């Protein structure tokens, strides 16, 4: 093979590598910046609800998540609860106008789950609140988040690390507490 021919084939290989690298970069850009799934559920929220703004105005978690101390699920407030304030508060804000739109169309807001447990594990909020576990232990510093984001990876190890430190450790280690 002549020198010229070998140079040409090397150039072809280089060009191939460059195209491959470009494709990989494009895929990475798509995954990281365009496809919302990789970023977590928070980006999918129909309204960019700002937790920080509400918490800094002194609104307690339980004002909206009313079920947290008496039922398995903390609950997402109804549009009615939102409108209780936002009929008068910050009505010019574009997100609030979107909220008002749902209210006027009498539609529920299709909020997206931030935390999802596997179907074979059952969590109950109420006993945790009763035992004095703060919301932040599992949900992170939501008061300083804008849109809520997952703060911890909710694995069995995460649950048991805390259960192991409790007084009634034996009872809290029973599989049947969470698995049925």
């Amino acid at each position, binding site marked *: 093979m002549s020198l010229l021919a070998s140079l040409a084939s090397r150039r072809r290989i280089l060009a191939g590598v460059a195209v491959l690298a470009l494709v990989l970069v494009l895929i990475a850009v798509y995954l990281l910046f365009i496809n919302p799934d990789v970023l977590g559920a928070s980006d999918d929220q129909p309204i960019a609800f700002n937790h920080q703004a509400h918490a800094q105005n002194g609104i307690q978690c339980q004002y909206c998540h009313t079920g947290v101390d008496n039922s398995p699920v903390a609950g997402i407030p109804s549009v009615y609860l939102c409108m209780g304030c936002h009929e008068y508060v910050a009505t010019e804000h574009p997100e609030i106008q979107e909220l008002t739109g749902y209210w006027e169309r009498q539609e529920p807001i299709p909020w997206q789950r931030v935390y999802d447990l596997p179907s074979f594990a059952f969590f109950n909020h109420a006993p945790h609140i009763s035992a004095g576990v703060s919301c932040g232990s599992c949900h992170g510093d939501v008061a300083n988040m804008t849109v809520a984001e997952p703060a911890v990876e909710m694995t069995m190890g995460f649950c048991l690390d805390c259960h192991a430190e409790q007084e009634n450790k*034996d009872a809290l280690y029973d*599989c*049947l507490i969470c*698995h*049925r």
Partner: protein
Amino acid sequence: MAENNKWTMIVDLDKCTGCNACVVACHAENNVPIANEEEVIKGRGLHWIRIERYWEGEYPDIKARFLPVFCQQCGNAPCEPVCPTYASYHSDEEGLNGQIYARCVGTRYCGNNCPYKVRFFNWRAPEFDEPLNQQLNPDVPVRGAGVMEKCTFCIQRIQRVRQTPEGDYGPMTRDGDLQTACTQACPSDALIFGNLNDPESRVSRMLPNDRQARLLEHLGTEPAVYYLKGGTTNVGE
């Protein structure tokens, strides 16, 4: 008061009419899959409660006898030591024989070792035809293919009652605070459910009983289901 629970079922065989209401209630409560005819012929039907029917006497002097059989929640359960993945496990807190579906790999050793034949294997992924798919209980997982399942004494109801402010999050619940689906459905009050470690509970007051017997008691399985023998109270002329 003891700290642990000992969930117990009493079956009064004189009251059981074999109506199968408990079986239906159990299917509805526990998302028990429904097998088709072909599968039932193969012995792959799933009913957490089975009503065994016996004929007593000779025609025309003949009586039908019914024996509801479900997981006996053995204190010394044959299914537990044979499970290689600890999916069949004993809960000392509840006195129950737990089945952790997420651990089960489907060896079916437990089902083979169970003398009561009350464990059921999911030979295929469950299908719930319309409108049954609309009434699945969200408190109970739907078991997938390759998993063993059985009566749990409605552990979801036990936990639901306990994990409420009224249940005080304590280990004990007051007698009558909870019923299993089958005891709730039983029209003749033949099934009585309660905590044997609670001296005030109805089951504690009924036991020991002259009529009591447990299934295959001689095997030493220590079942938590007590049968009150039939034919001694209200039968016969």
